[in-house]
């Protein structure tokens, strides 16, 4: 069968399934669909306003404005490129090597390379669409400030096609090589190593500016420093450089230069795909077979040795949980099970590491912010930016990792559901376990950032208390909504959703994320507005305004925990397994 016929058949199947999924969405609650629609629209509007404001601010610098805007484009696409490579690697590994459909396709009379091609296309779409969605307001704002015509946006869309192909091809190439030449148990260590290298390199190279200079009216000098320190994104061999250069050129009406960089990008994208597909001819099947044929990892390298690592891990976990003798044995057993399952699922925690890598990068970068409390604007801005970034990352984490927990019990739900303590305890255990790890991680990050920002003690206490509330509330939302809208998949066991990424992509996951974002917006709004309007502190320096808003945050957080959790617990009483 030719590649074209194979693709045409699969496109037909995927098209039919997509139409049915859209049809099923229409049958969902109109109110919920409306809420999700409003959220998407709000993100675009808010993003657009924020980026447009930022670009308008930059254009005010005489002589430097255009340069700064262009540099933002290079920086933006460099980060986007890095994220796309990671995203393609993670999704590509699951799609190419862990997907039941891939295994099934490999038993049919089609060439392995055609299966690879199809899965590469699927990976590219899955890994890239969200980034395109997120970058739309950025490009719209850039275009508006630059006063470009409508053609610019069409050209920008055209540029995105080859731009997403390069990280997809690179990511799949890395995955092909890793699975062919490394033990599959090494994958998480390889990914962890690569992630660490990227974070350390980024922490070393990315030093945008000293905010102290900004508040001391040395703006021009600070902007010069920003330009100097972000030179790393101007490497002409980077695909992000080609896409940004083309977009900038087209934005300024230099058609030929824009076309030149578009062709550079396109030719490199085609070459990257060619290299990836050609490599797959030789090693995809070998890697697939090897990936499914490997026994225990025995390298004699201490922590990397699977047996030793599992044994030691088990001991540490047992000792840790023994520190809480009051824990019910059933709760302890559930916690041990959940922690072990999470740790041994590469696709789960590799994404977890990336999320925290980004958050860690943000915190590391705070060392460049010389915070001084006598500047109201920077005090409020940096502090709330800090809180917003941490809480949004936490919401992403709880939606991605906590929400699917209940659904992932799937066909195993009866095991925990039939024991005497019942499903309510299962749900409460998931809530407490997820809340505790969320609190411990966000607390560590918040305290570190407060210390780096030299915040006054009462401000640090306020932020820390808020973050603790947020951790519990976001976990309450994720666990509660996860149980109210479980996504067990359907049909035979082979098709059930053991893949958390697929569980999240359903209606419940989207709803959970939307609710989390609404909650965060309300919390940040409640705490930021008194500061913005000057009611945060009384004339004698007491933070009563903030205390009042914190009480509101506490009530809101309690409601965010209590409402979904109590509804979910009630559902557990009558749930059929």
């Amino acid at each position: 069968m030719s590649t074209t016929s194979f693709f045409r058949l699969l496109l037909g199947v995927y098209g039919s399934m997509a139409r049915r999924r859209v049809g099923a969405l229409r049958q969902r609650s109109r109110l919920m669909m409306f809420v999700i629609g409003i959220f998407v629209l709000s993100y675009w509007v808010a993003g657009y306003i924020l980026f447009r404001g930022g670009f308008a601010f930059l254009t005010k610098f005489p002589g430097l404005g255009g340069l700064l805007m262009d540099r933002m484009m290079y920086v933006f696409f460099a980060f986007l490129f890095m994220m796309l490579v990671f995203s393609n690697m993670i999704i590509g590994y699951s799609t190419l090597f862990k997907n039941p459909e891939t295994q099934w396709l490999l038993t049919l009379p089609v060439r392995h390379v055609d299966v690879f091609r199809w899965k590469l296309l699927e990976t590219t779409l899955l890994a890239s669409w969200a980034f395109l969605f997120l970058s739309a307001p950025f490009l719209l704002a850039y275009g508006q400030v630059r006063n470009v015509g409508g053609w610019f946006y069409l050209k920008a869309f055209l540029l995105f096609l080859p731009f997403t192909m390069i990280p997809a091809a690179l990511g799949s190439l890395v995955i092909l090589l890793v699975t062919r030449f490394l033990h599959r148990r090494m994958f998480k260590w390889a990914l962890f190593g690569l992630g660490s290298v990227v974070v350390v390199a980024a922490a070393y190279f990315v030093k945008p500016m000293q905010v102290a200079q900004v508040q001391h009216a040395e703006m021009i000098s600070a902007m010069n420093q920003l330009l100097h320190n972000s030179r790393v994104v101007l490497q002409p061999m980077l695909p992000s450089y080609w896409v940004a250069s083309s977009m900038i050129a087209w934005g300024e009406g230099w058609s030929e230069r824009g076309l030149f960089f578009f062709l550079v990008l396109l030719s490199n994208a085609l070459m990257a795909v060619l290299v990836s597909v050609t490599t797959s001819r030789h090693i995809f099947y070998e890697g697939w077979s090897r990936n499914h044929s490997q026994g225990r990892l025995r390298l004699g390298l201490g922590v990397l040795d699977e047996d030793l690592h599992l044994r030691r891990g088990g001991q540490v976990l047992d000792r840790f949980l023994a520190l809480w003798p009051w824990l019910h044995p059933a709760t302890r057993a559930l916690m041990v099970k959940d922690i072990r399952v999470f740790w041994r699922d590469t696709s789960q925690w590799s994404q977890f590491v990336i999320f925290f890598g980004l958050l860690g990068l943000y915190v590391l970068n705070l060392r460049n912010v010389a915070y001084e409390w006598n500047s109201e604007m920077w005090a409020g801005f940096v502090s709330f930016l800090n809180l917003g970034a941490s809480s949004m990352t936490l919401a992403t984490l709880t939606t991605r990792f906590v929400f699917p927990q209940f659904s992932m019990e799937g066909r195993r739900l009866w095991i925990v559901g039939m024991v005497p303590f019942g499903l309510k305890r299962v749900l409460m255990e998931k809530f407490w376990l997820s809340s505790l790890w969320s609190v411990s991680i966000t607390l560590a990050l918040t305290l570190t950032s407060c210390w780096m920002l030299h915040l006054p003690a009462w401000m640090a206490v306020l932020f820390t208390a808020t973050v603790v509330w947020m951790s519990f509330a976001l976990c309450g939302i994720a666990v509660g909504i996860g149980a109210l809208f479980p996504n067990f998949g359907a049909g035979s066991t082979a098709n059930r959703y053991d893949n958390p990424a697929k569980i999240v992509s359903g209606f419940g996951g989207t709803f959970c994320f939307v609710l989390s974002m609404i909650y965060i917006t309300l919390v940040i709004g409640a705490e930021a507005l008194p500061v913005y309007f000057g009611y945060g502190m009384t004339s004698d320096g007491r933070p009563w305004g903030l205390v009042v808003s914190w009480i509101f945050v506490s009530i809101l957080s309690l409601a965010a925990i209590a409402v979904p959790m109590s509804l979910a617990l009630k559902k557990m009483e009558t749930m059929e397994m």
Partner: protein
Amino acid sequence: MIRTEHLTKSFGEVTAVSDLNLDIAQGELFAFLGPNGAGKTTTIKLLTGLLKPTSGRAIVAGHDIQRESVEARRLMSYVPDLAFLYDKLDPLEFMMFIGQLYGMDRAEVSRVSNELFDLFDLDEARSRLIETLSHGTRQRLVIAAALLHDPKVIIIDEPMVGLDPRSSRVVKNVLKERSRGGVTVFLSTHTLQVAEELADRIGILSRGRLIAVGTMDELRQASGVGGALEDAFLMLTQEEEQEEVETRPA
């Protein structure tokens, strides 16, 4: 129709299939038995080309599964124990997809599908989404899809799991009829009665090694136990385990 030559597969230090030599003729229904973890599924994955052997080779329908894999897969069908299905398709759409993958035209797929739906009592399910079907109905659909392109070799793993007695009878009859019509059936199962009832020959795998192969009578003779296959199977696998313990270094 199926031949393996010194077929061996190791997972790290563990040898899942060791030096397997099989020769299964056209039209033969061969049952493959073995305790849990004996290497049956690994053997099937080697025969279908899902796994690459550590050494040796497998030839299916006259084609080396590694060197001429597309040709071999075109002439065979594989029904795994946990089959993949597209949940948002209905059975006819699924059959249409499979049939076209095997190069059949739409009219032919439609005609054969109708016959198979009749045979497997799938008429009522034909316009429902696969996600709404019961496990047994899905299993019948998977088997029907495997027969769609009239394969020369059928490799089937635990076909009776989840089937009610009537469906189970239909599947047994179909497999027997196909085998009489010249199709080679390689059936892996834990259900000894199914093997006893259907198989022309039976192979018993234990710890990756083929410890016995032959007709029912030959197996009874080899085990020294008369009566049901169960007794012969237990005796042969027990002997193998005992031998393993005795030869293991202290």
